[in-house]
């Protein structure tokens, strides 16, 4: 500190920076720090709010009892929790194979061809398409013709949202695999599909997994597309997934916008569970990636 002192004092005199330049520079620095601080503050505000309101509402009942009726005490979130797990799993089961294969096509077969470029571009559009429109699309595709809401429709809607994430990450990760590995596989006389499955996929395994986790984080909290597809259920849904399937996001939406204290407490508990599950997935992907590199 002592050694810095004279330097620190001398700086303005030594510096040939004009005051106006210095002012704009300082303004930029202060604003950047301020905005970053604000961002972090908002994050902790949201997480803090979830913890304060959610933890007090958490109990073993939340995981074992089904949703209470309006103005009824007690109950839990067992049916929406399980329903959400089922819908997310269904979405991932549909999206993962298609997404991995499509990403593989772009990375290994399509490469720089015109069609692959178009698919890449469209996939990026799908990636940011408003999720409520996906809900509308699946409604006209699977709800209206079959005369009823269903878990299948909900799963398909979530799959459509997950798919582009998986396609993109799979392609990106497979492209990182060095060409020598592929050549080595081919030199052993293995056909392309075998090389892809046993060499490229193996090498890109961790990265591809992050894509799947990212997609899961993306769909776990999706509400809008479920409003028109799986809707909700106050009880256990049918194992056949026909009819409304209870799910956490729509339950949170209904409970949070209702006046009942018990419902609001459960909405906070559900929000806490869903947010920390999603943040956990995001952190897991970062850990996997940082290990890989």
């Amino acid at each position: 500190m002592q050694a810095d002192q004279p330097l620190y004092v001398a700086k303005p005199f030594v510096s040939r920076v004009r005051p106006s330049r210095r002012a704009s520079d300082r303004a930029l620095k202060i604003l950047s720090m301020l905005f970053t601080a604000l961002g972090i503050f908002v994050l902790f505000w949201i997480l803090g709010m979830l913890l304060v309101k959610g933890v007090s509402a958490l109990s073993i009942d939340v995981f074992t009892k089904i949703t209470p009726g309006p103005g009824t005490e007690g109950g839990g979130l067992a049916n929406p929790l399980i329903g959400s797990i089922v819908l997310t799993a269904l979405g991932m089961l549909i999206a993962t194979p298609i997404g991995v294969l499509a990403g593989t096509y772009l990375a290994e077969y399509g490469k720089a061809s015109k069609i692959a470029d178009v698919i890449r571009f469209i996939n990026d559009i799908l990636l940011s398409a408003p999720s409520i429109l996906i809900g509308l699309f699946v409604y006209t595709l699977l709800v209206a013709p079959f005369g009823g809401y269903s878990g299948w429709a909900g799963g398909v809607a979530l799959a459509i949202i997950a798919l582009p994430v998986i396609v993109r990450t799979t392609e990106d990760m497979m492209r990182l695999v060095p060409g020598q590995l592929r050549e080595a596989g081919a030199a052993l006389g293995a056909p392309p599909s075998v090389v892809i499955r046993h060499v490229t996929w193996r090498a890109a395994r961790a990265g591809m997994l992050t894509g799947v986790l990212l997609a899961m984080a993306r769909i776990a909290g999706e509400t809008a597309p479920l409003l028109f597809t799986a809707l909700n259920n106050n009880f256990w849904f049918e194992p056949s997934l026909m009819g409304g399937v209870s799910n956490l996001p729509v339950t949170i939406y209904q409970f949070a916008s209702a006046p009942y204290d018990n419902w609001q407490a459960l909405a906070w508990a559900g929000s806490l569970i869903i947010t920390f599950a999603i943040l956990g997935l995001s952190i897991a992907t970062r850990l996997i990636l940082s290990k890989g590199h």
Partner: protein
Amino acid sequence: MKPMNFLAAAGFLAASAISASAADITGAGATFPFPLYAKWAEAYKASANIGLNYQSIGSGGGIRQIKAKTVDFGASDMPLKGDELKTDGLIQFPSAMGGIVPAINVQGVGAGGLKLTGAVLADIYLGKITKWNDKAIAGLNSGVTLPDAAINVVYRSDGSGTSFVWTDYLSRVSDEWKSKIGANTSVSWPVGVGGKGNEGVSASVKQVPNSIGYVEYAYAKQNKLAFALVANKDGKYPAPENKAFQAAAANADWNAAPGFGIILNNQPGDEAWPITSATFILIRKDGDAAKNQAALKFFDWAYSNGDKIATDLDYVPLPTNVKAAIRQTWGQELKFTH
């Protein structure tokens, strides 16, 4: 939460999910009777082990879903007209009655601590009265300290039978309302913010200071919301409770309209609450026979065993003769045997 506990809980849940009864009844629509249907469903599940998955999405939604065949029954507080029932092949019958109250959130004013007339309510909802201490309100409430604050009007953003009853009442007491806005499940509201369902309106009134909204009385009661008293046709201010709603229904002519479609607004009588309504169930004639029977069984059970539950929530059970007439209709139209 320890992982082992979580696994145990997950296993338990999976087991109970699989044991879910496959013969559940599905219904959707009006939010007005939702607290009642939820309690009925709880008791029915305990006695018959059949669940009712009722989605409280508003009467507009109930009418749409039954027409689109996505549910076993639809629910609406706005009775459909005879020709509409005919074209869509629907059977309509009431399940219970209830009252609508103007819920308020004004500092220092408790339940029933404010008096309003229909005309003043209409002017508030027309945006002509904008402050709580407006002369029109203060004049009705000498001795009540009213804040110098803007009135936050809350209405229903969804298609709603409660909105229909409310706007029908305002049309009866205000010519300006009748000519400018009219009565329907959704209208072009001149001022205010929208809440989804009776739930959303109650929540907004609860949260937003200096607000007023209209909700079925059970919502105000369960959530301890303050409400205003409304002058009835005879100029009296009855408390909104069971006997006031019953008084409004006292001289109802249930056979005046097809499908028991009566309107109970602004009825004469000292005791009568001015904004009262029946709530209706819609079932398809061409619906799945077994599902129709299951839905009717539920309401049959509710007519026989659900009166106390209804009264506890301040809904009004139907008179015995009306129930008999409804059961007769079921027998004729849907081959239902009690």
